[in-house]
């Protein structure tokens, strides 16, 4: 089935020799398919939005990205849907599945870049790389410099050095550990991730661990910014966590916090602002 699809795609490409020729060499990419929300955002930030001809169904930021045709899923990509956009560069998030897709694309003569952008440092590096690939090296360097200076800036602890737990799922409870972008953001905002000692981006933990680490805040990401606490906060077992009992939730926009982004300074400022304007009650 897949081989059949590849054959069709090959035939289609063979009929377009001019475009295939244009994709070789060091010329800036003009038709880019981006298969990760963070990479799509970065392309638009570089000013390369008009060069993006394909995105994933989850690439919703910036709003202009929604006008680009979707090629479906980014982690389990459809090579045929991508090839149908006639890209001269495909950006993929590096994982075993996408490496297979990248090999298939290479076999079709479509250049690919496998990028791993999980942390703040990666944003700077990727910005430089993509700046060069899109013919916007100056813009790439400028984004990278902003991120580098954010990384180098001294961190001012919030007055109380707020202690935060990111809860991404309730049953079983899954929290964010170190080795994640969110953990970096928390540190830069002068706060502390109570699960910083877990060296994986996320981990399943038991509720009693959350209760005994006693975070001041429970942070959750949400697509729509209503201030309602999450539904699970009403469950009795969660009320053993003091922050849940006291309704101390930090509701963060997923669009700003959900992926490594050149808007990291904005995210840090957002978090600092939230923490500074909702001070903790005096310890009893």
């Amino acid at each position, binding site marked *: 089935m897949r081989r059949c699809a590849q054959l069709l795609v090959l035939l289609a490409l063979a009929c377009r020799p001019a475009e295939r020729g244009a994709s070789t060499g060091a010329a800036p990419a003009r038709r880019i398919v981006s298969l990760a929300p963070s990479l799509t955002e970065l392309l638009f930030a570089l000013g390369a939005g008009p060069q993006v001809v394909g995105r994933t169904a989850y690439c919703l930021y910036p709003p202009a990205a929604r006008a680009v045709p979707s090629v479906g899923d980014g982690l389990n990509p459809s090579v045929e849907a991508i090839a149908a956009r006639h890209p001269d560069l495909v950006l993929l998030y590096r994982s075993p599945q996408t490496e297979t897709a990248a090999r298939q694309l290479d076999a079709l003569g479509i250049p690919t870049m496998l990028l791993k952008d999980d942390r703040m440092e990666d944003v700077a590096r990727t910005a430089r790389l993509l700046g060069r690939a899109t013919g916007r090296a100056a813009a790439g360097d400028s984004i990278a410099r902003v991120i580098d200076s954010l990384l180098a800036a001294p961190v001012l602890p919030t007055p109380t050095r707020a202690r935060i737990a990111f809860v991404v799922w309730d049953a*079983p409870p899954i929290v964010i550990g170190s080795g994640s972008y969110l953990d970096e953001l928390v540190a830069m905002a002068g706060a502390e991730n109570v699960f910083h000692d877990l060296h994986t981006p996320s981990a399943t*933990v038991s*509720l*009693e661990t959350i209760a005994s680490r006693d975070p001041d805040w429970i942070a959750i990401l949400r697509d729509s910014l209503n201030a309602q606490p999450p539904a699970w906060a009403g*469950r009795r077992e969660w009320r053993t966590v003091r922050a849940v009992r006291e309704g101390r939730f930090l509701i963060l926009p997923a669009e700003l916090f959900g992926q490594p982004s050149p808007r990291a300074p904005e995210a840090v400022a957002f978090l600092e602002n939230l923490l500074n304007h909702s001070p903790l009650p005096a310890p009893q």
Partner: protein
Amino acid sequence: MKWLVLSLALLAALLAAVTLGPATVPAGQLFRSAIFWDLRLPRALLALLVGGSLGAAGASLQSLVRNPLADPFLLGLSGGAGLGAVLAIALHLGGAWTLPLAAFAGALLALGLVFRLGLVGGSALDPRVLLLGGVAVGAFCGAVTTAVVSLAEASALRNAYLWLWGGLSGASWDTVTLVAVYVPLPLVVLLAAARPLDLLTLGEEPARYLGTDVAVTRRRVYLAASLLTAAAVAVAGVIGFVGLIVPHLGRALFGGRHRALLPASFLAGGILLLLADTLARTAVAPRELPVGVVTALVGVPLFVLLLRRWTAA
């Protein structure tokens, strides 16, 4: 004597479950801490009830279908529960109790389908049709689940999958009360069918000659065991191997008489799940393993050992 040992093992398992955990609670403050009262104790009781339900359901289903491989989840209930849970998440149904309710509804749907299929061969619920129907319904639900997962947004559904692998992290006094009120009825139905079940293991014909209403017994036992399993999957996900291994242990120790086998399987199932959950919470603390993984890791070697002894004997 055997019952005394089983009771002592239960006490020891309960004690381990409430005293051990990733959070260190000084022994003197144990009875004053919320971690003990609101997390560990309800979780231990839920493990006991769920493990016990799976043990008793497994024992009666193995006798019902006269197949030592029967497991409470073999009859399609896990597939139905999984489909219910994944659909609830994909459709963004909110609410604190959505997941367990949806899983319960899905399990009931699968139960109804398999039961209806079982009646195709007559009112006596042909065990072969039940088994095949269960596997078919389970596979169908699994296929729909995978279709939903592959079409809907990834991260939430990955988490739903994790939930399906079993875990007692949702334990609270609310869930314990609910299960404690629900479980006795099907258990009593199973116990009341102990004598007919004894006869059924001899075969359908002898059972009938000895005065058993085969059709009624099968229907009652199937429904009671499945309702127990549906409740277990709703509050704790799919916990494998407890319902498969525990009845065999029970038979080895207490013989095949269901008057003794069913209570023994309940207790042994409770003990096994208590120990497995304690291990799941503490082995890689502060992280936690899905308890279904632990029951498999502990249960399968135990099972292999038993198999070797039985085949050698």
